[in-house]
């Protein structure tokens, strides 16, 4: 299951009326939004939205019914068992080894301010300003200890650039932290604080 689908499913399951709603869907052959709303004492729009969300997730099937009155939809449960499985390793940085060979250094005139940690040998945070005048906005990033140590050893603007791996070694950061180092490097590249050569 991809993250977006899981998020939508999670949002449905977290509704306070979700359990009662599923009890209805399991025990009824099919049900309309107005019937479910009256049974659960909900607003009809709430029931309609919930059923539509389940339809999109392919948990229920929507069928248009034509009776004497105007047509409406009835909903039937088609997936009585729901498995929510997420593989978080998908978010792991691709090819971290190769990424560590990138030559980086601080970018000149970057409008960033680094806060020194209490220990004095690393940074605790970096603040980046964007825009000018009233539109000027501040973006603060709190750093983990390995990230702070890494950035403390980042070469200055116009200094000889170093590979991420070399900076990590100089800063005494273990290779296990390479993914979180790459994450902050990528973010600071995006924000124009670090440049890749």
């Amino acid at each position, binding site marked *: 299951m991809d993250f977006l689908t899981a998020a939508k499913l999670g949002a449905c399951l977290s509704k306070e009326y979700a359990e009662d709603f599923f009890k209805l869907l399991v025990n009824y052959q099919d049900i309309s939004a107005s019937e479910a709303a009256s049974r659960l004492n909900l607003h009809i729009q709430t029931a309609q939205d919930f059923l539509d969300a389940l339809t999109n997730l392919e948990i229920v099937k929507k069928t248009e019914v034509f009776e004497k009155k105007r047509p409406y939809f009835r909903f039937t449960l088609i997936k009585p068992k729901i498995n929510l499985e997420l593989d978080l390793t998908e978010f792991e940085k691709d090819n971290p080894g190769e990424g560590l060979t990138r030559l980086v250094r*601080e970018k*000149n005139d970057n409008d960033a*301010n*680094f806060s*020194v940690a209490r*220990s*004095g*040998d690393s*940074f605790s945070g970096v603040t980046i300003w964007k825009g000018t005048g009233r539109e000027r906005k501040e973006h603060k990033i709190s750093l983990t200890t390995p990230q702070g140590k890494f950035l*403390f*050893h980042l*070469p*200055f*603007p*116009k*200094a*000889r650039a170093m590979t991420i791996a070399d900076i990590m070694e100089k800063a005494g950061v273990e290779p296990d932290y390479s993914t979180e180092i790459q994450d902050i490097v990528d973010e600071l590249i995006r924000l124009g604080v670090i440049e890749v050569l």
Partner: protein
Amino acid sequence: MFFERKTKDSSMLKIFLIPIGVIALFLTVASLAGFGPALYMLGVIYFFLSVMPFITFWRTRNAGFLALTLFLIFVFLVCVSAPPAIKDKSQTGLIPLFLVGMYISLMVVAYLTFNRKLRWRGQEIFELAALPIEDIGNSFSARPRPTGQIPISKTEMIRFVDFMTKNLLAFAFREDNRVIFVLALPGKETPYLLGLKKDYLEDTWVAIDFDGNISVNITEEDYLRFKMDLDFDQLCQSLGDLISEFLELSKNGQESQIIDKMNALRLNPFM
């Protein structure tokens, strides 16, 4: 030693401003109310002027400032004792003693000044740090830079802190795991001496932790003291290396060589 100066000098006007002001005030009061009140006023001015050197002595334990304090106190005593003696020559009292004290302390102060023992040394440290740097280019970054490591014991650190403070090279801030040396650059000393500045974050400093790691921070304001945009990375590295060299000399008991290096620059002893 011949070398190309890389830092800007502060204005000579500042040096003469106080003496010219005092003389002008003395002459004005003397012409309006006579020499007696003018001498009293001069004495009071010198008394107030003696406060700052005494505070400097108290903070740095640099005995030269005690000599300067004594000189200013003797001038004060001469000034306040002179008016009665001008009216009645029999009331000279201790004036001859004060005059002897004044001249002796003046000689000592003059000797110390010309030998740069009353000079704040931050600018000389900057000059020495900038000496090997040829590359230029605007590459300033407002963040500290680690520059290396040197093994150091606590005793050696204490000795080095005393040396740096006593010889007016830097103000030391002791933290749990490190000591921060704020360079005594011209015009930066007064807030530290008066205890108005409790932190060092907005100044140029070199930190040495008890594991011997050295980091350097140069502020933009102090970077602009240089005549050209020296390569900032090299400048920070050079400053760190210089302090590391000073520390090594201090560990070997060769502190006099540090002073000799700075004296060899032959910067104006009055600025």
